[in-house]
């Protein structure tokens, strides 16, 4: 199948022009201007390797998985399970059985809140999140709190976006039963010291989950080194397709949990007297999964691995530092999130200008950014702002594009003031 990786030699230096050639959409124009795509934190663009793998599946191999005694079904099932193997290897999970395919990270967190939370947490138990969570890592816990009486505690974030481990540690006590924290803030870019969070949480007797939606893109993530009990990420931010997320969970924990959704493919035996369920991961994958998308994710992981995280990290760190320098030179610029350890996620405001207006002018210049509260309203309240413009820089962005961003912001200032 077209599960090919490019013939580019793996090196620690990223050839950004070669990478850009792999992403067909990057040669598009918008409003007659070259597209400058800086919204990868919302969803990343897809390389042709991913597009080809998904097309190949649909043109030559597609069928449903885990059923059907015919050639195509067996071939697709193999490809689907190979994707699970690849994800396990990518996260350094102990077994592919620890990899559950979900629709997205939101679903992964809801799965844990529902299946683990309702089975093992009771009134008075505490769940810790942080002030910089995406709504996806807040609302499921609020629903759990309403249903069970579990208490939600919130670890603070500093004014510059830093996450101070000692302030998190102050919240831990013998009532703490679960910590669910972002591994990298989608607004501030702040990286959370996951290994240390897990060590402290475990010492307090709590399980720990990480929302890895942003972190996994800048990886590598080693769930065993971190000692995460649960870890969620999504394919579409990792240059793969939308509609597919991943929940990693330690196997003994997963197998101790009741199912979340009931239906086909997750059962052992069904009768009207009662049903029994498969072990993980299938216990948590009711219904037909996102088959083509899993094959696309496999290709995306191969693509990222082929380029190499050392090269990606070095490239993105260069972009981040250059963006901070270039944007800071603009009068009235306010960078939101300047923690020492941060990913290439650049949130900003311009004095006197509404972020929606700034983003609209950037859009007319071909620069695609996200604007708003970024599904993190409590963080906006904490920082006392209504929202930000956010430029997320990915492996395919260039310093020249950051110059275009800077010039577009300067144009916005002229037009709007």
């Amino acid at each position, binding site marked *: 199948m077209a599960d090919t990786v490019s013939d580019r030699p793996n090196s620690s230096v990223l050839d950004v022009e070669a990478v850009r050639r792999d992403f067909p959409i990057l040669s598009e124009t918008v*409003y007659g201007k070259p597209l400058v795509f800086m919204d990868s934190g919302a969803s990343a663009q897809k390389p042709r390797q991913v597009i080809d793998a998904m097309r190949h599946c649909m043109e030559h191999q597609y069928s449903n998985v885990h059923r059907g005694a015919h050639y195509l079904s067996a071939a697709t099932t193999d490809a689907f399970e190979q994707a699970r193997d690849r994800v396990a290897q990518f996260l350094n999970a102990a077994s592919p059985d620890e990899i559950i395919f979900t629709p997205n990270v939101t679903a992964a967190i809801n799965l844990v809140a529902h299946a683990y939370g309702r089975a093992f947490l009771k009134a008075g138990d505490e769940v810790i999140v942080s002030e910089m969570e995406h709504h996806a890592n807040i609302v499921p816990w609020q629903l759990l709190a309403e249903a069970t009486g579990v208490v939600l505690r919130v670890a603070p974030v500093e004014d510059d976006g830093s996450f101070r481990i000692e302030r998190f540690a102050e919240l831990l006590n013998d009532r703490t039963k679960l910590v669910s924290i972002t591994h990298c803030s989608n607004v501030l870019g702040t990286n959370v010291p996951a290994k240390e969070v897990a060590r402290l949480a475990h010492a307090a007797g709590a399980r720990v989950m990480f929302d890895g939606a942003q972190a996994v893109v800048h990886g590598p993530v080693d769930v065993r080194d971190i000692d995460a009990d649960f870890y969620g990420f999504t394919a579409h931010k990792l240059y793969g397709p939308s509609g597919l997320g991943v929940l990693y969970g330690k196997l003994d924990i997963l197998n101790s949990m009741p199912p979340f959704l009931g239906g086909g493919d997750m059962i052992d035996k069904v009768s009207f007297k009662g049903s029994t369920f498969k072990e993980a991961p299938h216990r948590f994958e009711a219904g037909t999964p996102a088959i083509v998308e899993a094959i696309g994710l496999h290709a995306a992981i191969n693509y990222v691995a082929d380029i190499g995280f050392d090269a990606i990290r070095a490239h993105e760190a260069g972009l981040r530092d250059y963006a901070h320098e270039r944007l800071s030179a603009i009068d009235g610029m306010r960078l939101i999130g300047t923690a020492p350890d941060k990913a290439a996620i650049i949130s900003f405001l311009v004095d006197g*200008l*509404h972020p*929606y*207006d700034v983003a*609209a002018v950037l859009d*007319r210049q071909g620069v695609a950014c996200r604007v708003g509260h970024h599904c993190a309203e409590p963080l906006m309240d904490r920082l006392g702002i209504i929202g930000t413009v956010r430029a997320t820089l990915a492996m395919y962005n260039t310093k020249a594009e950051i110059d275009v961003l800077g010039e577009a912001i300067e144009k916005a200032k002229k*037009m*709007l003031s």
Partner: protein
Amino acid sequence: MAREEYEDFAEALEALDDDMRFEFLLDLAKKQDASDFPEEWKTDANLMHGCMSKVWLVHEEREGRHWFRGASEAAIVKGLVHMMVQSFSGLTSEEIRAISLDDVRRLNLGALTFQRQVGMMAMLKQIQKLAGQPVARETAGA
């Protein structure tokens, strides 16, 4: 007469290219000052819900005609609000009821994103609601 205002806006927009339309809206926003919409009117009761940036609309009925004023914290939206309230103020209930979504589309002309168009449609519906009239719907086949 508001219909003249509407025609003026529509014709001005038709004569401009996309970039110029964008600037036209910003100019409309800049022409407004604080007296057009006092701060004390920016209450939750006057707030339109569901907008990306805050939009406030107030309504007054005088001698059988409806008058609107609006504000937004974002300049481009302020320009849109200005155009909408100027276009559709001074109308009778019957005239307000007759405003269609196509009338609003004529004030958009692709200068703005689909999301903005949705916002303008929401503004029309709010205007009709404030005037106590049924809100415009897509006609079949539109």
